[in-house]
């Protein structure tokens, strides 16, 4: 209340509302939708190679066998293990082409794809950052309905240097920023959850990639992965869950092999 006493309300021209406040809002919204569609279009052209899918599926199979070893009898497990880890014919022992670490980088296709992905994000952002202060600077365009400390002044009132102006009055740049953050929720409604406009998720993803060490487009070395998986499979201790089923049942307790299987199925 006190700041309303010390600062009388400003009277703003209604045409500011019609030609600045609402247009920025609409532009932001349409820009987000456009960006979403462009990203989608670019992504759909991406293709996975057949070999890669094959190799990944083989690894997944071995991993699943290891996780569920208890549900097949000992002989069956041994046969599967042989199928994967046999010295000459085991699938995990076959030589794979070692990927060239530079191949991904020198592949122009890959590079341009990465660039496109980033561009679709960055260009509209930068464009708006330039356009908005250029067209709509030098006046107050609205007021946020809650008080803030004066330290926000520099951020909210860029382009208007009035030391006595209430901090709650904002200029176009801060309205843009406010809209940028607030729009994200709106997109999730309009475009469906998990849309690509979620900048922060994308940012995190990129960070994760950087932290993981692998370049996004780089192929993993399947020889190494296979060797590890084969080793894991070799040291897996096989214990058949159903071998003691009858005794457990006769003992009157729930046969926990059966319930465990039920659980596994449900999960």
């Amino acid at each position, binding site marked *: 209340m006190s700041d309303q006493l010390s600062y009388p309300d400003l009277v703003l021209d209604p045409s500011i509302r019609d030609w600045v406040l609402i247009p920025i809002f609409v532009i932001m919204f349409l820009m987000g939708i456009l960006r979403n569609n462009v990203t989608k279009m670019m992504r759909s052209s991406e293709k996975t190679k057949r070999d890669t899918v094959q190799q990944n599926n083989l690894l997944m199979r071995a991993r699943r066998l290891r996780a569920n070893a208890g549900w097949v009898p000992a002989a069956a497990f041994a046969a599967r293990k042989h199928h994967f880890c046999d010295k000459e014919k085991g699938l995990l022992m076959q030589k794979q082409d070692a990927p060239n670490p530079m191949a991904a980088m020198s592949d122009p296709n890959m590079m341009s794809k990465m660039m496109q992905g980033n561009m679709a994000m960055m260009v509209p952002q930068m464009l708006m950052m330039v356009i908005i202060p250029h067209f709509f600077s030098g006046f107050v365009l609205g007021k946020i309905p809650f008080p803030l400390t004066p330290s926000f002044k520099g951020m909210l009132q860029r382009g208007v240097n009035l030391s006595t102006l209430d901090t709650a009055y904002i200029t176009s740049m801060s309205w843009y920023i406010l809209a940028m953050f*607030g729009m994200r929720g709106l997109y999730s409604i309009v475009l469906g959850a998990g849309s690509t406009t979620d900048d922060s998720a994308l940012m995190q993803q990129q960070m994760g990639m950087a932290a993981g060490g692998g370049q996004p487009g780089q192929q993993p070395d399947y020889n190494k992965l296979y060797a590890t998986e084969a080793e894991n499979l070799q040291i897996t201790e096989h214990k058949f869950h159903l071998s003691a089923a009858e005794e457990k049942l006769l003992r009157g307790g729930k046969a926990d092999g059966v319930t465990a299987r039920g659980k596994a199925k449900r999960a």
Partner: protein
Amino acid sequence: SRVFVAILSGCVAGVLGLTGLSGFVAFFATALLLSAGLYVKVGCQPKPFFKTPSDIWFDGVMQAMLSYILFWTLFYDIVHIY
């Protein structure tokens, strides 16, 4: 749904001309109302619908709040400032 409710309540708060703390109180009140509604809807058993039980109360509140602030500001400006 949380964002949707936040946007609606933001519009209402803006039109009513809530300012300062009362606006945030309105946001949390509507968010709480939504959570309570959801809680009753799932029959007080959030287990199969949410990853953790507390998600029903807290999931996506920050996101919703940003949208709330945006729409609150928009309608407050349109209705009361000009």
